[in-house]
């Protein structure tokens, strides 16, 4: 037996009792949780890529089922590949592939190596930040389908992307931001170098010529910083002003432009003071904050990615009796498609024939497959689990139900009002006060001494340049975003950090969030001479014939014993078939025992009756001699869920479960997590209703979810958190994404969010105090110019250093690495 509690070698999840699947890895047998993980682990080590297991810093995705080579058959056809891919020199082709399950640098190393080992592959570049790989290969030597199969074999599910425009745009945006940042950084360093002699010269005396020279050189270096690096701020301000609103870009731009123009004027005329050091530093730090935020946003994935993951790129079209694989974008209304078992629909349509059962959970949240008789509507992105379907296309591309949802999310994401507005309102308030103040100063000086009115007004505007004030929030948020990213928590929208610090309630989805979201065989009890693995093998063979969700629990647990003959499905009870010369039944206890012909049967387990309210279910296997085995099926609780709920409660955040599942199952999970309030059988709109009721009571609600049916809840929540392995659409609705798919760090995140708010408040207090102190002195003309320049820079530096405290002391713990601390196990 495997050591109790030993996790799966590949995916790190606990191995259900009774499952004895071993992967042959580096000359020893490692326990794995299912045959999917076995296949992946053996392929990886067999290809000489076992180093992957030493270098990875997060566990891999569970494979669930062994790779299915036939899925990529369409990509073996040269004429289709020709249309999907781009031509490269010397007859080579290239394509960009989105890799699902790519989580860390070790994963990208794995993908890179596995592909490079294939002959015919000319170039591979894998980018873990965007989960994309670019392949260049020689179509004469290797087929695209084979390369995709290799990726699937190493546990990374590939999604070929046909038209890859958004990614190219994002890449260029990142590069251009990096260039602007570099110019600001280099420029700032240079100007600082010239600023030091200027300050000392001011105090100790300096050649007038040399002083003039230093100031002109500073100006020369600052010009590209102000014009090139600062350009995005001016653009943002211009857009805001044209839309008759005020964003944070407006005071920032006014600050930069005023300080820069005043400095240029003074440098050219040789009078007054120059503020080039402040200007360049301001641009650099603000640009840095925006750059960090942009990287996080790009990593969080775009809506286009979500669509690519949900809808297939190819479809099988029938024309005048001939079936051919075509690109999904070529489909037209009225086309006839064949959707084989296990395939995902490429378009909306009407069923013409076939007896398919379709899993529509991604649209409706319903986990049971729905029968689709001829005439029924089927939708793009849903999964055919039954017999092949013939479908007539009724909507394609932008008109399907799925793309409607995606478009809705895209719009909601773009609008994103909430706190961003609050910050902008503060900026507008501040700006109007400053302009009024400057006008008063100008008027008073005009009355007292018109010749000094202009310079004094300028001094007021420059000294109160909201540098420190504008830096106060973004630097703290950038530091927190970076600290959380190191722990595998992606902050897609930084305004969520402020909301998180104020949160008072947590609403949990159950399935897939508090639990793993997969029904699994948790325990096997046998009687007589039957071994657990044999019982699992028989069960697996029988359940292959079923589309019931429970059947999927058996799919990976054991290698099926072979196809069962004489199979009959008894709806609602179970199924029967002949295997290894025995007539076997699997299903409810009464149904299985009905096969038994005489005598009393030995009970394989002190098993509770099925559906006894514990939320677990038992499935029985038997033959004519009586019961052979009982399987306990559960959706296991995440091991860290209990601590997480307790940790959040300690921070003053009570938890509540809103689930679409059965009341008994919800109650069981709630009791195990120590959650008092829970409600079951809620449709997505009911979840939203519960959320609205809470919010109406003045609470700030955090919602944690994973599925598409959680998307409305996440969209309505003050802070939305999605699981890293959840559906892509849930992730696009989320503010925070738990990339490592672990709840472990959630309490820490709340704590960090609160510390961030404290730092932001300190920063704001400091910079407002500085401005308030400097303003009257500058207005009266009492601030010596060199002191104004130093004060302006120092106030910004203090703010930045204070923010940097947030990124300290939060190095994540690494999991114990294979094979360092692991003894070889005896089988």
């Amino acid at each position: 037996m495997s050591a109790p509690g030993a996790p799966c070698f590949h995916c790190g999840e606990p191995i259900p009792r009774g499952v004895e699947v071993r992967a042959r890895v580096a000359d020893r047998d490692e326990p794995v949780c299912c045959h999917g993980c076995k296949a992946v682990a053996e392929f990886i080590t067999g290809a000489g890529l076992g180093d992957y297991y030493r270098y990875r810093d997060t566990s891999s995705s569970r494979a669930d089922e062994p790779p299915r080579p036939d899925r990529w058959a369409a990509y073996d056809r040269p004429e289709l590949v020709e249309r999907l891919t781009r031509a490269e020199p010397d007859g080579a082709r290239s394509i960009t592939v989105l890799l699902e399950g790519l989580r860390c640098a070790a994963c990208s190393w794995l993908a890179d190596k596995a592909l490079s080992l294939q002959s015919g592959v000319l170039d591979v570049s894998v980018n873990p930040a965007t989960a994309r790989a670019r392949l260049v290969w020689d179509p004469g030597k290797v087929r695209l389908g084979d390369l995709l199969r290799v990726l699937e074999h190493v546990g990374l599910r590939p999604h070929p992307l046909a038209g890859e425009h958004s990614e190219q745009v994002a890449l260029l945006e990142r590069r251009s931001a990096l260039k602007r940042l570099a110019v600001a950084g280099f420029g700032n360093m240079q100007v600082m170098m010239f600023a030091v002699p200027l300050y000392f010269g001011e105090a100790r005396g300096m050649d007038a010529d040399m002083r003039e020279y230093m100031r002109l050189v500073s100006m020369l270096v600052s010009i590209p910083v102000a014009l090139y690096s600062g350009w995005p701020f001016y653009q943002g301000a211009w857009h805001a002003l044209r839309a008759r609103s005020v964003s944070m870009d407006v005071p920032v731009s006014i600050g930069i432009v005023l300080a820069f123009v005043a400095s240029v004027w003074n440098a050219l005329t040789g009078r007054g003071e120059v503020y080039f050091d402040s200007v360049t530093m301001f641009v650099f730090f603000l640009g840095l904050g925006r750059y960090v935020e942009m990287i996080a946003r790009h990593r969080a994935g775009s809506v286009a990615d979500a669509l690519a993951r949900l809808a297939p790129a190819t479809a099988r079209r029938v024309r005048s009796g001939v079936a051919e694989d075509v690109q999904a974008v070529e489909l037209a209304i009225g086309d006839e498609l064949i959707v084989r078992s296990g395939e995902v629909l490429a378009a909306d349509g009407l069923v013409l024939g076939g007896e398919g059962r379709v899993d529509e959970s991604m649209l409706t949240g319903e986990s049971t497959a729905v029968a689709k008789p001829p005439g029924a509507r089927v939708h793009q992105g849903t999964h055919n689990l039954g017999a092949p379907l013939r479908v007539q296309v009724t909507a394609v591309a932008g008109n399907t139900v799925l793309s409607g949802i995606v478009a809705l999310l895209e719009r909601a994401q773009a609008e994103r009002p909430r706190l961003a507005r609050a910050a902008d309102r503060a900026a507008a308030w501040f700006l109007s006060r400053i302009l009024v103040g400057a006008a008063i100063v100008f008027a008073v000086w005009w009355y007292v001494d018109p010749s000094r009115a202009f310079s004094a007004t300028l001094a007021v505007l420059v000294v109160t340049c909201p540098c420190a004030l504008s830096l106060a929030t973004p630097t703290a948020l950038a530091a927190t975003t970076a600290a959380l990213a190191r722990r595998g928590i992606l902050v897609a929208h930084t305004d969520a950090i402020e909301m998180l610090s104020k949160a008072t309630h947590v609403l949990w989805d159950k399935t897939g969030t508090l639990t793993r979201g997969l029904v699994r065989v948790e325990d096997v009890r046998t009687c007589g001479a039957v071994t657990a693995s044999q019982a699992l093998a028989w069960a697996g063979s029988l359940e292959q014939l079923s589309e019931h969700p429970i059947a999927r629990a058996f799919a990976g647990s054991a290698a099926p014993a072979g196809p069962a003959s004489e199979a009959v499905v008894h709806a609602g009870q179970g199924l029967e078939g002949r295997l290894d010369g025995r007539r076997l039944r699997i299903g409810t206890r009464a149904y299985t025992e009905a096969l038994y012909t005489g005598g009393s049967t030995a009970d394989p387990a002190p098993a509770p009756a099925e559906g006894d309210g514990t939320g677990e279910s038992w499935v029985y296997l038997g033959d004519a001699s009586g019961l052979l085995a009982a399987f306990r099926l559960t959706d296991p609780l995440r091991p860290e869920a209990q601590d997480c709920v307790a940790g959040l409660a300690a921070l003053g955040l009570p938890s509540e479960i809103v689930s679409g599942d059965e009341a008994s199952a919800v109650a069981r999970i709630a009791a195990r997590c120590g959650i008092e309030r829970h409600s079951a059988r809620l449709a997505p709109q009911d979840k939203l209703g519960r959320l609205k009721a809470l919010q109406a009571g003045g609470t700030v609600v955090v919602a944690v979810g994973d599925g598409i049916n959680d998307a409305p809840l996440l969209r309505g929540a003050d802070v939305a958190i999605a699981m890293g392995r959840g559906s892509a659409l849930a992730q696009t609705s989320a503010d925070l994404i738990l990339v490592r798919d672990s709840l472990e760090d959630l309490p820490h995140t709340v704590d960090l969010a609160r510390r961030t708010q404290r730092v932001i408040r300190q920063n704001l207090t400091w910079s407002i105090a500085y401005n308030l102190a400097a303003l009257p002195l500058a207005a009266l003309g009492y601030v010596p110019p060199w002191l104004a320049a130093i004060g302006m820079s120092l106030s910004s530096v203090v703010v930045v250093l204070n923010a940097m405290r947030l990124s300290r002391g939060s190095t994540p713990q690494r999991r114990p690495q294979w094979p360092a601390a692991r003894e070889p196990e005896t089988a």
Partner: protein
Amino acid sequence: MEILYVMIPLGLVLVAFGLWAFFWATGDGQFDDLDSPGWSVLEDDTRPGPPADTKPDPTSPEEQK
């Protein structure tokens, strides 16, 4: 201190060169992925690298299956 009239422009030329190099590297994609290339030094050099550009090296050992 007159030497500064020469040294500072020289320094600026160096900065300009540095920036030009940085721009080139950015455009070349050197900063697109900062994580995975670091792993390549950890791997043993027992296998040949990826197959040569157009034709596989006939002397290289069998490709892994």
